[in-house]
């Protein structure tokens, strides 16, 4: 809960007046002061922008093969080299950004929505409902992920929408568990008991008091879900269930490049760097968000 104004101190320790702004504004301010997170945000924005303008900016069509220039290392006409079929790597990385971002964001949103709702209800209500809900989670965990995904792909077609659903549908389970764990812990804290004593409805308690405090691990785990989803998509591409060629995501480019690591290193270096940088940035932003959103954030020592 937001500390009283008497406890807000500036960097030197002197008390500081706090405006009656919402905790979210505070959070934004704190985030802006976190340099690493802002760097990560900048990188992500740059990549996202590149993904959006890719069709206009890319030097070649993404599916244009030229067998005579297969697997050439970077040159002036192909800044990042070509792949084995003579396609420009820079173009493929730019287009790959689109797919990767789409997959990461959408699947995470799916998992977030389902997982938070489910986990908070289970943790808050406790008792029988909690038992039943968590047993359901256990059951779903035990289902063979591979088969479920294969099945979806085969029964409903190889569209990218199915990819989101399948990936999101697997991730929400862990999210629900973590949220439940957090809610269980927080439920017995004094400020919750206080809010309840003051007559707040269960929903209000959940949404206004519990969740903001549980937000830390949720945000953290969500930002970890995006890269996990991206990696899982790469794994699926590897097995022939991801995006269809000649379309590619960073993950499938990495899978192709990994096979040719010693022979044509640029095929793994550039998509790999793009992927790694993005994932690292996502993590640092998530970290910054976590610090910023922590309602009991202590002051710098």
């Amino acid at each position, binding site marked *: 809960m937001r500390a009283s104004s008497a406890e807000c101190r500036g960097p030197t320790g002197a008390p500081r007046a706090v405006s009656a702004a919402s905790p979210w504004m505070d959070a934004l301010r704190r985030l802006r002061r976190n340099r690493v997170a802002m760097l990560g945000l900048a990188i992500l924005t740059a990549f996202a922008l590149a993904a959006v303008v890719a069709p206009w900016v890319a030097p070649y069509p993404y*599916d*244009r*093969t030229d*067998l*005579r220039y*297969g*697997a050439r290392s970077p040159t002036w006409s192909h800044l990042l080299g070509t792949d*084995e*079929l*003579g396609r420009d790597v820079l173009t493929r990385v730019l287009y790959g950004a689109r797919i990767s971002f789409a997959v990461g964001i959408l699947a995470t949103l799916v998992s977030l929505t389902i997982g938070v709702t489910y986990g908070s209800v289970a943790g808050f209500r406790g008792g029988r409902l909690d038992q039943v809900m968590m047993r359901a989670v256990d059951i779903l965990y035990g289902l063979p992920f591979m088969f479920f995904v*294969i099945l979806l792909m*085969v029964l409903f077609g*190889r569209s990218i929408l199915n990819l989101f659903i399948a990936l999101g549908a697997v991730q929400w389970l862990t999210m629900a568990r973590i949220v439940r764990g957090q809610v269980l812990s927080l439920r017995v804290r004094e400020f919750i008991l206080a809010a309840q004593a003051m007559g707040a409805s269960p929903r209000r308690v959940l949404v206004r008091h519990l969740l903001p405090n549980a937000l830390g691990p949720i945000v953290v785990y969500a930002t970890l879900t995006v890269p996990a989803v991206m990696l899982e998509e790469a794994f699926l591409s590897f*097995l*022939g*269930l991801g995006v*269809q*060629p*000649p379309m590619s995501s960073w993950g499938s480019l990495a899978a*192709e490049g*990994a*096979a*040719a*690591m*010693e*022979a*044509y290193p640029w095929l793994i270096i550039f998509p790999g760097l793009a992927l790694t940088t993005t994932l690292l940035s996502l993590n640092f932003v998530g970290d910054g968000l976590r610090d910023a959103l922590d309602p009991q954030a202590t002051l710098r020592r």
Partner: protein
Amino acid sequence: MRRHLLLVLTVLTMLIGSLSAPAVAQEQVFRINNMVEPESLDPGVVTGVPEHRILSNLFEGLTTTDPKDLSPRPGMAASWTLSKDGLTYTFNLRDATWTDGRPVTAQDFVFAWERVLNPKSGAKYAQHLFYLRNGEAYNTGRLTDFGQVGVRAVDPKTLQVTLKSPTAYFLDLTNFYTLYPLPRWALEAHGKDWVKPGKMVSNGPFMLASWVPQKELVLEKNPRHWDAGSVKLRRVIFLPTDDVNTAYKQFLAGDSDWIPTVPPSQINTAKTKPEYYASPYLGTYYFRLNVTKPPVSDVRVRKALSLAVDREALTKFVTKAGEVPYSGFVPAGLRGYEGPRGLGFDPAAARKLLAEAGYPDGKGFPRMELLYNTSDLHRVITQAVQQMWKEHLGVQVDLVNVEWKVYLARQGSLDYQISRAGWIGDYVDPNTFLEMWRTGGGNNQTGWSSKRFDELMDRAARLVNAEDRMRAMRDAETILLDGAPVLPLFTYVNKGMLSQRVKGWYPNILDQHPLKYIRIER
């Protein structure tokens, strides 16, 4: 706390005990990357090449092969005669024993072949014994008395085989694992477990020492083998590493002596190494065209698609291992057979044909799907061909990558328009490539049918004279290529890496390398 520590230590020790001591590479030990965990060691059950590499050294059939030219050599049969009408073989068995000391008798062959043909056993390669008189009838249940089937043990050392019709390549088949003899008493004593180390009884130059699934399979020299004197290798280790790149690295690091394939991306660097080899392989890489589904139901469309593929560029820039661009279906190099030339690369003719079919410059051409199963190689080849069709014909084809089982199911049910495929010959005769295209043949899977083709194949099956036979098959292949349910791209090349210390290994068209001729040099 201390108690917990003790418990943890105990558990750790037990776990670490599951690790065994390392094997040190010694002389006369041949380590092979077999690329996959063998499905089974029962010769009557298996169907794959990696299994053949193991089983052809654990067991021995009536004949073996010459390591250089694959001609049949005496195996369990020291000699044989063929009747004038080409229907009856009489095999005289030599004095050979099983690893447990019992003699190999003609009865062991009869037992094994009955087991394969028995409908209840569900053997997947039973069709290799359909060449026997009444073999097929017994397998389909129409005949229940095995005594009527064309194989019998005249006496313990004489086996008589009666064929349905003259079969020129029968002596190649006797080397195949489906026709190996089996020790009935071992199967009866141990049931399914008879193939395990310690229980297995075999008659080949090597015996099974150990088998840990997914880890390694070890053979050791069989001192009881009739030809044990010429066997130099002491131990053979089969590594089932199925990741190609890892297997390749194992070879480079010296952890294996032979890898029978090279990752596509490494071919150019591998070619510079002295361990690299490439030799023609009896197989064709092609596309199946479903003649029951438009637009490929129109033969002009099929031919146009074929004419628009630059096979030279494909083999030169995409596959790169010296595959032979080829438009026929039966690979070149089979003795006595001269296949017809198919459709080459002629974009102008292709466009003309397409226009005739009603799609000038590809306008109005419906979207088509090209089906293929997951593999790095197929991925690049199909993408290259997709581009060629776009460039030369203005035709847009979507690539559909599915996993293996789905691929098989869709091909089998004709739920595709174009599908990537490959066919490896089972024996050295054009028949193995042409048999499948008969009307309703199980491996046809294109819906194509030609009465004339069936007639020619029937004729060829009955002819005894080699030249006449080859001519009939050539005519049949001409009809096949004319009907174009297939779009051949190239014939396979066997490429791999072999340690220079390995001697007695010779490249041949079936990539068979009997281990009894191999030795390791210092």
